[in-house]
């Protein structure tokens, strides 16, 4: 469970170009469910995801995560408050808790599929061979095993998307955060993506997707749609 309490995110505070991207967001996201955040462009979806996903700190308000344990961070009643943690600790939590899938795939060109997939595990200190085995297993599941040593720039859009999903799963996170994951996919690939999401959810992962793609928002597999406008949750 993730609870977001009265979170504000202000860019360029105190300057002429001050911008309030999140304005008192109040939201509970249930564990093990698929939640979609929907809203027009500029409404703050990406900002909210980055704040929830420990990528950025809110200007004020609190975010509490349950089921997280990181050395040196106190938790009360099973919750960890991430709001005032320094980046160093936020990153540790993020690595364990969330896998990220981006609109742009964001694979590192020039590296092979397997290297890209293993990248998030490098700073965890896990043994190389263990990570490699897990990566190969995951690539098999996603039908990418034959492309193991291909450079990522030669992959098709759908393959790239699946590589980025495997990369998000490599540290075995309990949650997946996806920002506009289907923006570059056609309808068929988009619904395939939703099938993958469903299977990940069935493994017990909490999934949060920001999207205004009807294939996602109207999909039967999702549990809840949250609507945003001008930095506020309206429904």
């Amino acid at each position, binding site marked *: 469970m993730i609870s977001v309490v009265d979170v504000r995110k202000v860019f360029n505070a105190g300057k002429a170009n001050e911008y309030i991207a999140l304005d008192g967001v109040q939201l509970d996201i249930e564990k093990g469910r698929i939640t979609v955040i929907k809203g027009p462009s500029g409404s703050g979806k990406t*900002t909210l995801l980055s704040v929830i996903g420990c*990528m950025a700190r809110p200007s004020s308000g609190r975010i509490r995560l349950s089921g997280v344990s990181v050395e040196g961070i106190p938790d009360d009643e099973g919750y960890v408050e991430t709001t005032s943690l320094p980046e*160093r600790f936020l990153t540790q939590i993020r690595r364990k808790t969330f896998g990220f899938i981006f609109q742009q795939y964001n694979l590192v060109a020039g*590296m092979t599929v397997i290297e890209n997939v293993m*990248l998030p595990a*490098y700073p*965890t*200190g896990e043994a190389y061979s263990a990570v490699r085995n897990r990566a190969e297993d995951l690539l098999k599941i996603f039908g990418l095993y034959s492309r193991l040593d291909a450079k990522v720039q030669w992959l098709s859009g759908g393959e790239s998307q699946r590589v980025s999903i495997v990369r998000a799963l490599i540290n075995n996170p309990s949650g997946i955060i996806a920002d506009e994951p289907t923006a570059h996919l056609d309808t068929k690939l988009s619904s395939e993506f939703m099938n993958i999401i469903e299977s990940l959810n069935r493994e017990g992962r909490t999934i949060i997707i920001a999207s205004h793609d009807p294939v996602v928002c109207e999909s039967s597999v999702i549990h809840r749609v949250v609507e945003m406008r001008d930095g506020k949750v309206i429904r």
Partner: protein
Amino acid sequence: MNSRIEIQRNILDFTLSSLLRRKTKNAVLMVVFTIVVFMLASIIFFTNAVKREAVAVLQNSPDIVVQRLSAGRHDLIPADYIKTITDMKGVVSVKGRHWGYYFEPAASANFTLVVPDDGGEEGRIVAGKGVSRTMRAGDGDILPLKSYKGEWVVLSIKGVLKSDSELVSSDLIEISEKDFRKIFGIPKDRFTDLSVTVRNPKETLTIAKKIKDSFPDTRPILRSEVLRTYDSLFNWRSGLLLIIAAGAVLAFIIFAFDRASGLSAEERREIGILKAIGWETSDVIAFKFWEGLVISLSSFMAGIILAYFHVFVAYAPLFEPVLKGWAVLYPEFRLVPFIDPFQIATLFFLTVLPYTAATIIPSWRSAVVDPDQIMRSQ
């Protein structure tokens, strides 16, 4: 603990693959770095080796050399000074020495004529390698020298000097006392200077003072003094060369700083991705650290190895033009290879340290990009 090593291993792994992915860009940097190290290392190796040679030669020079000065100019010293000095307490022996410079107009070269300790064999000489080379005369050949009166003194070469240190012996001619006096027109009771051997090195200074007191027209020169002069001369020379080379180092540092701060869009995106997928700022800093270490250490090593070959195997061909100015008889150096940790440490300080310092801030700057930035770049 173990996992911390594993983290660094993984990051180093990534660093290497990232360096390989940008081969050309990094190769340019490394080549420039290597050239800078090569230059400085050549200067340091060369001056140190030459200094060692000179010191080695001076090591067997006499404790005190006594010269006579008249009107501030070096003059021949009378033989009867020998007796007085020998009688001084603490003096083991005093020898009169003959040596002088001879100008050979045909080759426009200067030779150093020396009478060996055993007095030499009349009519025959031993020539240094440089002499033999310039005059195209070897074993058994005839070498005529013109005396101060303009008469020819015909000498035959009975051997060519073989010496480790060509720097000093190259222009040498060992000649008999008689021939020497004939060429320079030196009276029987005069020597070029005197060499004094002292029993206890600690008394050298006292004895020198005593000589100066007894013969106010002499100038005693201590070996330690000469050594010291040589030492500081060579230190100055290499220091000066280094300061001249400092311009190159500075240019390189600016170049490296520029490189490190002006990341390409590609590299920026890559670091953005790393941060977004869970690399922490200090992981990226570690990546940048390894990158700098690999680049600087490999360039450093390459530069040093190249300099070693340049100075000790190829005998510093790049310095030849500079050194040729020193003497017409340019000796073909056979420098004894010599490198100590001190020289390496100095080189490290002069090259790797400023490079590292110049890249600290740029690499930190590239490491602190917002992790969520990548989600917005379209």
